[in-house]
């Protein structure tokens, strides 16, 4: 393994620990929310058992279930940012809100857990144990005790798999770590103590049901193990995805960034490097760097999406100075134009060249449009840049033809960027035309590039649909 690979493996291993915690936070949020609704349902069913209770027992039962209800309401608040904000508006609730907010994602005891625990301990005593309420039908009593223990089981499960156990930044204390594996055993003991049939009413619940209920917390061990396996697997997956992403990023950087830089480097080392070509190649490199950045940041459309003029426009405008950005506008219909890979690369070359020429001429507004049209039997891609600058005649000092074009067709010479650009589009059956708008009584220059669409396998046509 090379040095780079070792370093990468180290970084990924570091990510693995946080991946476990982050996955547990995401999973716990969903599990917590689902658990709250489940427990709310169980509690509602327990409230229903009051229908079979004698009137004399109702105040005690209502008190016990009210404590549990307060607990579940706090549990809902605990998991909802909006609810925490609302609670914070109540006078004197600030400390409670602060407590609930700061105990999220940490293995510690919180108010909602305490209230739920106390409420359910009291609720269990309504149906079984030393002094249950009298006068309940045995079936309702059994249902009540099962509902209470199911509630406790779910609430404590959340504590057993709480993300706080996996938090490396704020790890649980040593005492809490020792406490964790004892939770199932302690809870089993507590349930046994609470439901033990010490009264005639308590004995109405079948002993087998009580034994099963008392033993149910031991199921936390396999649940905990399964949760850990899933978390570790997700960390492994993160590691693989990171390695894959690094590999892909390297390949993208290579193919999109290195190529124009190598070409630029080669050109600089020729006998007579041309400034225009250096400008064009450096623009290509800058645009590609920005394209890779957008891609790696997830801003760009996915690779399977068709390449559009919109993405090229966004990439280009994000690298020009802000003052220039404000002077440029793109025709809305142009943005949806789908381009094949060759057409996209030609457009990537044409757009910066024509647009920066217009900006440098001192124009206050530069309008850009892209479209496709059938000309002389074949489909062409067109890009037009119109500015309100002094006009090509005034800026070059050359005489204009009657139609506003230059007699030599393009300014500069064989070394200029426009000539190089013209060579590129001419290879694809196109041309660049500059027209001084003064011939039509307007101000500025209309720069137009067109070339034959290079879409042999119908990528752009398929993406644009039948009307495209």
């Amino acid at each position, binding site marked *: *393994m*090379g040095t780079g*690979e070792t370093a990468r*493996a180290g970084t990924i291993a570091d990510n693995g620990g946080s991946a476990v915690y982050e996955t547990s936070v995401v999973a716990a949020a969903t599990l917590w929310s689902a658990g709250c609704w489940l427990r709310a349902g169980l509690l509602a069913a327990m409230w229903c058992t009051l229908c079979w209770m004698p009137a004399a027992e109702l105040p005690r039962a209502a008190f016990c279930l009210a404590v549990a209800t307060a607990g579940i309401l706090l549990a809902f608040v605990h998991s909802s940012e909006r609810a925490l904000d609302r609670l914070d508006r109540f006078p004197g609730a600030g400390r409670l809100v602060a407590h609930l907010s700061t105990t999220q994602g940490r293995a510690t005891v919180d108010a909602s857990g305490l209230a739920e625990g106390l409420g359910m301990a009291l609720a269990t005593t309504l149906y079984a144990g030393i002094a249950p309420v009298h006068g309940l039908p045995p079936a309702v009593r059994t249902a009540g005790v099962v509902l209470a223990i199911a509630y406790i089981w779910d609430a404590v499960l959340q504590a057993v798999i709480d993300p706080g156990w996996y938090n490396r930044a704020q790890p649980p204390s040593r005492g809490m770590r020792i406490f964790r594996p004892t939770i199932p055993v302690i809870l089993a003991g507590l349930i046994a103590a609470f439901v033990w049939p010490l009264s005639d009413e308590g004995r109405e619940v079948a002993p087998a049901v009580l034994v099963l209920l008392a033993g149910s917390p031991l199921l936390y061990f396999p649940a905990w193990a399964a949760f850990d396996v899933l978390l570790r697997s997700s960390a492994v997956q993160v590691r*693989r995805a990171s*390695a*894959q992403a690094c*590999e*892909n990023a*390297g*390949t*993208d950087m*290579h*193919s*999109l960034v*290195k*190529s*124009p830089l*190598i*070409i630029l480097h*080669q050109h600089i080392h*020729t006998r007579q490097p041309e400034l225009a070509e250096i400008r064009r190649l450096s623009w*290509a490199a800058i645009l590609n760097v920005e394209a890779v950045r957008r891609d790696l940041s997830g801003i760009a459309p996915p*690779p*399977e999406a068709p*390449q559009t003029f919109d993405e090229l426009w966004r990439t280009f405008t994000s690298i020009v100075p802000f003052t220039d950005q404000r002077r440029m506008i793109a025709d809305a219909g142009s943005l949806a134009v789908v381009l*094949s*890979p*060759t057409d996209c*690369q*030609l457009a990537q070359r044409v757009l910066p060249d024509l647009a920066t020429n217009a900006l440098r001429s001192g124009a206050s507004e530069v309008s850009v449009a892209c479209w496709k049209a059938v000309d002389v039997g074949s489909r062409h891609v067109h890009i037009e840049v119109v500015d309100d600058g002094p006009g090509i005649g005034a800026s070059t000092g050359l005489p204009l033809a009657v139609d506003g074009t230059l007699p030599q067709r393009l300014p500069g010479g064989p070394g200029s960027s426009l000539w190089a650009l013209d*060579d*590129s589009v*001419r*290879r694809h059956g196109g041309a660049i035309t500059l027209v001084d708008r003064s011939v039509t009584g307007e101000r500025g220059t209309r720069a137009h590039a067109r070339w034959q669409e290079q879409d*042999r*396998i119908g990528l752009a046509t398929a993406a644009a649909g039948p009307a495209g």
Partner: protein
Amino acid sequence: MRVVVVDDMLAWEEIVATSLGSMSSTDGPYQVAGARSPADLAALLCTESFELAFVDINYGKRVRDSGLAALRILAERQIPAVVFWNKPEDNRVLFVLAAFQFFRPLALVPKTMSRAQIRAAVDAVAAGRAVETPELERYRPPAAGPSLLTRLVPSVGDLMIWRALSVFAGRTEVAREAHFSLRRVDNFLRDRFDAMVEVQHRLLDVPMDALTDVLESKQSRLAPMHAFAQTHQAFFRDEELARQLRERERDRG
């Protein structure tokens, strides 16, 4: 002579066109066209013919096919090709090795060549002369004995294990993913390790000491081979490679 450049970057087509004097003129001895992917090449060859192709190895994330697919398309039409690549591409050396194993391209043309050197290489091909570049000997299969690629990936079964290794780093996971026994995976790790070391040493210039440390320390070969498979996963997952291996196995009967 008509030359086609199969490269996802239009700029490389233009470099070749400029080198051959066909960028702004169609009167010279060479005409250059381009294709952005193997599928684009296949479509182009339906209407045009060429006497030489410059073939890149990788076409970016938008294209699944590699240069091996382009070389196969060209070989089916008996169009001679040269591999056009950038040397420091660690994760592409196996593609070049496979290109020379399966398709016997005429030359290995680095993209760092000057325009004059590209022109000289094409002139040599046009005149029927061999184009020797310093890198070529590293990739050309030996006249006798198994090639480095054959030792690395002798069969489709071994390819499946390499693919599994590019994802998993555990013996059991690799065996399960590749649908082989643990013994088969152990044999693979033992038999393919030397070829892997040779690829890294001969093609990627990794010092031999760093590689033999693994053997001397009796460390598991799994970790370095997993890392190697990850680096070269694009190669091991290449459909054209699998196709060529299957065809070779079928030919052997």
